[in-house]
């Protein structure tokens, strides 16, 4: 357990450092824009707004929020303090709603869509990759090119194709939104059903994209493991092939968990685009609207939230990994 | 004990520490050794004893954490690339794994030409260079005509190691550091390599430092033997003394643990 604690603490430290850095990036990037960022922001978005008092209110609020007249370091602490209070200011495009309320409305959609989809895609992909490595021949010959094709298929392309086939063509599933337009969010059967039906297309388009890459990775890992010495020894000790394949897949799967931790950021990027195609009311779609409405505070908050989500997910996966792979414990115990 | 003039390489308090804090590892721990001109010295140690680290420090490939190396009576100075090149004209090496010792993108000619250039032969006429290379190859029983336009990896392990000796033949260094030169090679090619090394030593009068884990081999080739354990020398002296009448416990254990054929190998001592 000692080794694991050390592992856990080192990961925690690393996580905190990354967190601070993510905050800093989010803080510094907009300030790298030439000129007064607040002035630029407000004037840019004022084109789309008629409410003059509203514009003035926002300007005031943002000079406050960013504290542009104060030194950089102080600005940073103000920013961090505000973020910790969930205060991201007002949204330009959805004024007078606050950024926090806009994010709050969309974040659960994204969490409930993306993480199950990525995990399901990971599981299916690993199973297929393992099968390809074990069965070889025909299955491998078909699966490999298909995996390569699918894993490099643009996420939005997959989304559009599913949408056209199952939404527009076969009309099995609705093409946009998180639930029916005529429904009000509530815990009724009709609403739930609508949510489930709307969930399918975005979900499967993310799953399909995730499958390909994972299958390729798992296949190489498994082939590598199948040539390991312990496979030969286990065979000569009379252990059944099926059981040995079990060892191999377990051992090949474990590094794949770290692989998932590393690639989750990339996958989330693709998944955001899939949300946009289906007008799914998550962060991706919110971000699209924010871009269209030149809503800087909203974009900044959304990117920060997504980064946080990815960081936490990565952290959790790595913690889990250290818990189940004995090799980590041994490496740390040295 | 040898007089000061015949000592060509001397170390004093040579130490190498890797890592820091809890991962700190002292690979070589205050090592003093003296190397006489023309002699064959073996450094014997098991894996992890620090013998390779010591070799790399002697070669100037890594810097010691502490301690000094004296070359021909003067403190070694290899702070600039130029001085390094000068030093390496005097000390050369043969490494353990011939398969990893060559750049597989360079042809054999390039390997040998490099040596001629290093000895200042860059401006020699082409024919002269070829002649020198052919001479070096014939010294190690290889045919230069068959080697031109070939890559080192097209040779067998033994042939590659012989090519290494041909390299030394061209470079004619004062000191040769042979780091386990025969451990990756079959027993029946080993004698060839060792014979060639010794013949070359006699011809150009160089000093050989032989690094090995095989105490029998050390006994076979060397005049002086150093036994190394955990970065320290535990015993040193003339080969016959050390091997046949070991004093240190470690040396005694090492020798008793090696299987023999004329004497009894006592299994009960484990």
């Amino acid at each position, binding site marked *: 357990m000692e080794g694991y604690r050390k592992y856990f603490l080192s990961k925690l430290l690393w996580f905190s450092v990354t967190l601070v850095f993510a905050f800093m990036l989010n803080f510094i990037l907009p300030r790298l824009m030439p000129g007064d960022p607040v002035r630029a922001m407000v004037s840019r978005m004022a084109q789309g707004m008629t409410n003059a008092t509203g514009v003035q209110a926002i300007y005031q609020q943002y000079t406050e929020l960013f504290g542009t007249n104060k030194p950089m370091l102080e600005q940073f602490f103000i920013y961090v303090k505000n973020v910790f209070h969930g205060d991201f200011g007002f949204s330009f495009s959805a004024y007078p709603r606050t950024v926090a309320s806009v994010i709050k409305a969309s974040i659960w959609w994204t969490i409930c869509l993306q993480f199950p989809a990525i995990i399901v895609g990971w599981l299916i992909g690993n199973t297929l990759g393992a099968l390809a490595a074990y069965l070889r021949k025909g299955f491998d010959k078909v699966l490999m090119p298909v995996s390569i094709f699918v894993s490099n298929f643009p996420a939005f392309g997959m989304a559009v194709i599913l949408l056209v086939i199952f939404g527009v063509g076969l009309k099995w599933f609705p093409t946009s939104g998180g639930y029916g337009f005529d429904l009000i969010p509530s815990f009724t059967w009709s609403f739930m059903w609508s949510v489930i039906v709307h969930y399918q297309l975005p979900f499967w388009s993310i799953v399909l994209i995730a499958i390909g890459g994972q299958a390729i990775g798992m296949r190489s890992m498994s082939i590598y493991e199948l040539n390991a010495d312990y496979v030969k020894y286990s065979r000569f000790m009379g252990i059944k092939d099926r059981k040995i394949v079990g060892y191999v897949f377990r051992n090949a799967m474990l590094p794949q968990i770290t692989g998932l931790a590393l690639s989750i950021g990339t996958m989330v990027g693709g998944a955001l685009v899939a949300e946009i195609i289906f007008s799914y009311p998550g962060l991706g779609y919110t971000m699209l609207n924010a871009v269209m409405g030149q809503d800087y505070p909203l974009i900044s908050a959304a990117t920060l939230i997504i980064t946080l989500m990815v960081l936490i997910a990565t952290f959790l996966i790595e913690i889990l990994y250290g818990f189940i792979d004995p090799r980590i414990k041994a490496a740390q115990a040295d | 004990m040898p007089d000061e003039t015949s000592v060509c390489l001397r170390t004093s308090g040579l130490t190498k520490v890797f890592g820091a804090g809890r991962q700190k590892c002292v690979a070589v721990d205050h090592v003093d050794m003296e190397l006489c001109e023309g002699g064959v010295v073996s450094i014997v140690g098991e894996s992890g004893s620090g013998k390779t680290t010591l070799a790399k420090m002697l070669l100037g490939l890594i810097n010691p954490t502490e301690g000094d190396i004296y070359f021909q009576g003067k403190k070694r100075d290899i702070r600039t690339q130029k001085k390094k090149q000068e030093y390496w004209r005097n000390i050369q090496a043969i490494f353990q794994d011939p398969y990893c010792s060559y750049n597989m993108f360079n042809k054999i000619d390039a390997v040998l030409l490099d040596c001629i250039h290093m000895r200042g032969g860059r401006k020699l006429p082409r024919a002269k260079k070829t002649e020198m290379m052919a001479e070096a190859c014939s010294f190690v029983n290889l045919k230069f005509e068959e080697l031109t336009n070939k890559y080192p990896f097209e040779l067998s392990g033994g042939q590659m190691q012989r090519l290494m000796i041909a390299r030394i033949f061209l470079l004619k260094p004062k000191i040769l550091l042979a780091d386990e030169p025969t451990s990756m090679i079959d027993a*029946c090619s080993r*004698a060839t390599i060792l014979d060639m090394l010794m013949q070359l030593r006699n011809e150009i009068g160089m000093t050989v430092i032989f690094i090995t884990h095989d105490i029998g081999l050390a006994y076979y080739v060397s005049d002086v033997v150093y036994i190394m354990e955990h970065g320290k020398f535990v015993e040193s002296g003339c080969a016959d003394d050390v091997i046949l009448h070991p004093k240190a416990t470690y040396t005694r254990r090492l020798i008793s643990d090696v299987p*023999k054929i004329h004497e009894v190998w006592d299994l009960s001592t484990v």
Partner: protein
Amino acid sequence: MKDVALEWVIDMKIPRLEVKELTTKYITRFQENIYAVDHVSLKVEDGKSLGIAGESGCGKSTLALSLMGYYFPPLHYTSGEIIIDGRNISGMDPDDVRKSILGTEIAYIPQSAMNALNPTQKIINFIEDVVQAHDPYKTKKEVHDLARSSFETLGLPAEVLQKYPVELSGGMKQRTVIAVSVILSPKVLIADEPSSALDVTSQKMVIKMLKNLMENGFIKSMIFITHELPLLYNVTDDIMVMYAGQIVEKATAKEAVFDPLHPYAKGLMGSIIVPESGLRNTKLTAIPGVPPNLKNPPSGCHFADRCKYVMPECKVTSVGLREIFGGRAYRCILSEGELREVYSKEAYQNAR
């Protein structure tokens, strides 16, 4: 009394392991055949150990794999018989071999114990799998008791069972592998360079353990494979020398080391280095050249190209194994007398 006597007679008559003309090959990616084991015959009796020597690539490790009678690509069975306790296993269904032979009749100790154990499994769980692969009805408790008593008898601490392979040192890992290999009390143990990756002290411990196994009757016979001749001389009763997939010399350990007949064996024995007095006065033998490529082996004697005493007919006539008195055998065109004459003449010249 009579039965006991009869059993004794049978024991003497039927060797524990007999291999007749075994040939196996590797099939490469390019569909080339490499005959790494070429018509090898051998016999090991109870209480005896056999050593196999040879330089790298001579087929000694492949022979170890082939002796198990359980083949998987790229190694393929070609011809010959493997008879264990009178049962010919070369024609048996692979699954029967797996269930009733591997681990129970014949066991294997791999070259690199470092990676021989599944890194993500505790030793005890692997032992469970091994035992249950042969007897699915054994309970966990029975397996644990068996493992514990077996480890204790072999002088290994029982805590090892609860550890992962990465938590063990190199020597301990190798001894654990040996203990796991003999858990089902096999009759024959095949050890393929079990100690060459270890330092001399751990090597000695491993050898001692193997010798104890033999002496205490845990295993009946052993085949020990290594390229280190002094080690082999100290471990086994008989020694076979392999060259290019074939056996070239078969003799007792003493004969093989001090009085080899085959020119290759002679060269090999002449290259032995041990830290003993007198070593510095001997001249080591060197054999020039490289072994033949087994993709297309020479038609005559495989050693002809490197042999000092080669004659024109060596390169064309294929040479069989010559059996001589005392169970010795060697593979050469010359008779025992002729060889001895050649060798003594050479020794006389060298002395002059």
